[in-house]
């Protein structure tokens, strides 16, 4: 089941940024630069691209790793950063979802599973790229006090799979939290709390996403049909309350993963 929706989750974990992805040529460039500077067997015959004109500042500690003044400052910065992040961490654990959802975690990917009268409902989301860009409301007031800083909220795209007993296919919904493009203050948004973007039947238990299954896109969908689909999800516990709780869970998980990443980074930078 994990693999069967992996493509959907990958699609769902799209960046909200408007920055276009780099073209293929420039993505290949860093790899070619790395191979030019690699000190392999044939490296002597290759032109040296990344040879420093002068020696890099290092700290000699007798180990095989590179330690620079920059690394030391970086490690100190990370120590402070980790301390601060842990200070503002709301809960050490993750908030619980109401409605009897069972939580499974796999790094940044989370699954919420529930059974209802033989029907299985699975919600899958990934906290990577789940924090929308914070827009400045007033360009003149760029210096904000800590109290004025907007709260970071994770609003991941999520995939809902509904599987009826004995059915060969699952009904799969790709759901999104609408992005607040104009940076409205709290309470001024007039979008639904979450929206359904795409609906499709996918083979139950299959590992591959079936590209030949019709995918309904709700952009130009009859609104009555859309409302029926929303009511269908609400009857299975995927309603506005669920959506609000999911953002709380996702925000806590994202923060947890961020702190873990900083700790791993600190260990890596300091590693001997």
């Amino acid at each position, binding site marked *: 089941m994990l693999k069967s929706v992996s493509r959907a989750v990958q699609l769902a974990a799209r960046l909200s940024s408007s920055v276009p992805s780099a073209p293929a040529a420039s993505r290949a460039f860093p790899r070619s630069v790395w191979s030019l500077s690699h000190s392999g067997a044939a490296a002597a015959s290759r032109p040296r691209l990344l040879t420093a004109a002068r020696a890099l500042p290092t700290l000699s500690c007798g180990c095989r790793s590179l330690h620079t003044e920059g690394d030391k400052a970086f490690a100190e910065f990370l120590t402070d950063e980790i301390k601060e992040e842990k200070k503002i961490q709301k809960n050490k654990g993750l908030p619980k979802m109401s409605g009897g959802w069972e939580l499974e975690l796999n790094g940044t990917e989370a699954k919420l599973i529930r059974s209802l009268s033989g029907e299985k409902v699975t919600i899958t989301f990934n906290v990577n790229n789940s924090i929308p860009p914070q827009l400045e409301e007033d360009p003149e007031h760029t210096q904000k006090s800590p109290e004025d800083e907007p709260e970071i909220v994770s609003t991941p795209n999520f995939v809902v799979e509904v599987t009826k007993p004995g059915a060969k296919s699952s009904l799969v919904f790709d759901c999104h939290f609408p992005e607040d493009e104009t940076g409205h203050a709290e*309470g001024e*948004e*007039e*979008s*639904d*709390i979450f929206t359904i973007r795409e609906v499709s039947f996918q083979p139950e238990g299959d590992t591959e996403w079936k590209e030949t299954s019709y995918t309904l896109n709700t952009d130009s969908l009859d*609104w*009555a049909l859309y*409302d*029926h689909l*929303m*009511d269908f999800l*609400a009857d299975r516990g995927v*309603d*506005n*309350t669920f*959506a*609000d709780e999911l953002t709380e869970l996702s925000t806590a998980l994202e923060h947890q993963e961020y702190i873990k990443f900083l700790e791993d980074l600190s260990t890596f930078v300091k590693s001997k």
Partner: protein
Amino acid sequence: MGVVLRNLQNVVPLRRAKLRKDVEVLRHIFGVQRFDMGIICVDNRRIQRINHVYRKKNQPTDVLSFPFYEDLRPGKIPCVLQREEYNLGDIFLGVEYVMQQCKETSQDLHEALTVVTAHGICHLLGYRHETEEEWNEMQQKESYILSEFNRLTGSHLEPLTKRSTQDMRP
């Protein structure tokens, strides 16, 4: 476009499809099927804020209407010259407030929302109830609309009474 329906609250479990279906019947009876309209369902906190901002009343209410066409003669269908002007405006439904009223009167929530929406559409079409005369005129219109609705759907809806709504057009 039609009816844009938004549910911004999580206090009241809402049947979107039923609400939309009932609103479509109302639009047909009012004769405004060609006009776009917004129905936004909000909780007490949000409708209280809107009520405070636009009517200086810091309390929740059942419905607030924001007409596209202001100063319409009551009941007059707007005369439209351009496609983008086929718009009646927006109705904010205080669903939490209505649910609380339903609990007191043992009324069905979605039936009450249909009645309140009919009231809201009357406001979009220029009806007011600031004077006794205006209230009677609006009450008459609502009674007609709801009796037609009942005939078409087999429902038994009744118009809002003076005490059951605190709204006015902002």
